């Protein structure tokens, strides 16, 4: 009797297993043979912004494109948190319901291009004056003469500061320092320390408060590069443990642990809530200050011994090569990055199109930022700025090096020795 029951269970399990496999095969076959939709076309667009105004702007481009094509598009915007973006996106793209269009981070560009998940955009771009896009800006997103994503944002990092706290501490503002040509990292360090001592409020918060984990490179790159150092180079040199890099990281470490003027790891004090005098931001972050209870301003990043070395955060948009609407999505990407579209979003995401970038309208495109601030902190930096380093193995590099970087965030950390360890991790992947 027991044997019969066991046999029955085995039969049932086998039946269900076969049923599942058959359903899987039928589903896969059905997906390939899907007929052209008769109603509105559904498209999903993955981004890391959840700002409703920014989403509405992106949706207006989708609707403009739909009107031009004479079709209806029902767009769904999927906002994935920045720290989880690459993880969740890659998982979705390998599944059946990945987004049709998606933003790509500059650090992950080579890996995504290599993966074959990005559709070739050469044909889609033809209608929209591709020569207008700076070739430097396209370099990261191209391989073997083919373009796989188009940068919609070439946005330099700058200092956002709380003017009230500077006044309270009796310290010159970063803009005043910059006007005198004295805005360097030493002045930045001193301002941060003085504000903490005189007001009790933190002098500096790292970019989005993530400078010790998800945004280590964003946090350290401006200091490291203006000291003449770097993380690694395109030709395979690892420079994170060079003397210049060590001196730069030591400066930041001293600010955190000697001056105690920087919001430390784990502390949730936020610049936008008035709990820090300075932070690093981009023009897209300025809208967070619309309802700020304090006066604020923006200034370029401080310069180092090697002069100014602006860092640009670049983001591009691409189409899913294996998506059900790959061809239409490629056209939509090109439309979203045409001259009119990038001009409309230039106040949030500075463009890579030369005609828009060089126009007078760009300097007045963000109502919260003055023409001079836009010129000094944004436009000037775009011309000379460099993007963060990237690599086809970036996901692995990021995870492994983060564990070593963790050692830095202790009071008695030996910065040089730890950066040697980071360099060893980089060298493992970068050849």
């Amino acid at each position, binding site marked *: 009797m027991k044997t019969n029951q066991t046999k*029955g*269970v085995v039969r*049932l*399990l086998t039946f*269900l*297993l076969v049923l*599942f496999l058959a359903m899987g095969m039928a589903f896969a076959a059905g997906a390939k043979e899907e007929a052209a939709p008769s109603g509105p076309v559904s498209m999903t667009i993955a981004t890391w912004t959840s700002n409703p105004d920014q989403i509405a702007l992106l949706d207006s481009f989708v609707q403009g494109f739909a009107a031009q094509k004479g079709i209806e598009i029902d767009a769904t915007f999927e906002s994935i948190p920045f720290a989880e973006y*690459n*993880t969740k996106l*890659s*998982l979705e793209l*390998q599944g059946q319901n990945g987004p049709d269009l998606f933003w790509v981070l500059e650090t992950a560009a080579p*890996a*995504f291009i*290599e*993966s*074959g*998940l990005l559709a070739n955009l050469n044909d889609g771009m033809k209608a929209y004056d591709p020569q207008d896009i700076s070739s430097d800006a396209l370099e990261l997103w191209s391989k073997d003469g083919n373009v796989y994503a188009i940068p919609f944002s070439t946005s330099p990092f700058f200092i956002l500061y709380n003017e009230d706290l500077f006044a309270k501490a009796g310290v010159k503002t970063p803009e005043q320092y910059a006007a005198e040509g004295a805005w360097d990292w030493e002045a930045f360090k001193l301002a941060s320390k003085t504000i903490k001592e005189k007001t009790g409020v933190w002098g500096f918060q790292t970019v989005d408060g993530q400078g*010790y*984990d998800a945004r280590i490179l964003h946090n350290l790159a401006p200091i490291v590069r203006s000291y003449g150092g770097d993380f690694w180079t395109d030709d395979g040199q690892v420079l994170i443990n060079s003397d210049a890099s060590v001196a730069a990281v030591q400066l930041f470490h001293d600010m955190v642990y000697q001056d105690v003027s920087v919001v*430390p*790891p*784990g*502390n*949730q*004090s936020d610049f936008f809530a008035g709990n820090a005098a300075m932070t690093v931001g981009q023009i897209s972050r300025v809208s967070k200050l619309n309802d700020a209870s304090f006066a604020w301003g923006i200034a370029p990043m401080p310069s180092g011994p090697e002069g100014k070395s602006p860092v640009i955060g670049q983001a591009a948009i691409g189409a899913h090569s294996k998506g059900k609407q790959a061809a239409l999505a490629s056209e939509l990407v090109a439309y979203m990055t045409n001259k009119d579209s990038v001009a409309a979003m230039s106040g949030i995401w500075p463009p890579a199109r030369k005609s828009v970038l060089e126009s007078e309208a760009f300097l007045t495109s963000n109502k919260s930022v003055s023409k001079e601030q836009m010129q000094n902190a944004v436009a000037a930096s775009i011309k000379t700025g460099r993007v963060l380093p990237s690599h086809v193995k970036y*996901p*692995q590099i*990021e*995870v492994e090096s*983060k*564990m*070593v970087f*963790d*050692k830095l*965030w*202790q009071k008695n950390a030996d910065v040089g020795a730890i950066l040697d360890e980071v360099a060893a991790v980089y060298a493992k992947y970068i050849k």
Partner: protein
Amino acid sequence: MKQHSLKANHRRDAIIGWAFITPQMAGFVFFVLLPLVSVFLYSVQEKNLLFGTSVFNGLENFRLLFADPLFSKSLVNTLIFSAGVVPLNLIFSLLLALYLGGGKMGTRFVRGIIFLPVVTSGVAWAIVWKYLLQGGDAGPINWFLSLIGIEGPNWLFEKGWAMASVIVNRVMKNLGMNVLIFMGAVLNMPGDVIEAARIDGAKRFTLFFKIKLPLLMPTVMMVAIVTIIGSMRVFDTIKLMTDGGPEGSTMVMVYYIYHQAFRMFDTGFASALAVVLFLIVLVLTALQWFSRKRISFYES
């Protein structure tokens, strides 16, 4: 005729029986058995999640795994985590169950308080605790410690303290469920046996170790097995509170599997890790199961 009717009845009963278990079995096949089989298949492949590639590579993932210092680190971290969580959870939940089972004043209120974390969302719980455990004088816990002259550490960003923090956090979050299970057992203890021991002059400690604990042992064994398995598979507490840091000091095995599969996209290697974890949990559970007769008088 009668035999035919009996056969028909049997068949009808069988069909009804299968109809009842089919939904459950379907769920088991689709969501447990198939993924489990897939993990074993993936573990012998070089499989990249981002690139969508997979190539059979035999036992190469297992060879790499045993040479990987992070694997041994994650294994040690898992054991430390379990060694912290399991005894603390069992001891406190048993003591609380004995207290609450005694029907003393305020037990309903205490029971509610202890069970509250179990029904609280794990994300909300972690966010609140990350706030409470901030370093310096920003965190309420450190502020409280400073009142009594103690300078608290940066709990989640210092090695050692980070592991201690997640262990205590995990114990507090899940204690209520085990208290509830133990209370059921405490309330079902035969009163006459305890009464007889008291009459024979058994004092409190003798009563506990010689009478109550042996009576509760089958439940203790069951709770121990479930708690050990749960602690070996911890993910949410680590993901939400420390992200495996600092310096990988809270990188437990399940989180390392997640790191390899979804951050580094090496699904094949991650599957090999999952197979090893599966075998470890299987062996531990089997050891406990087969040793239960030695530990508990009431196991048959």
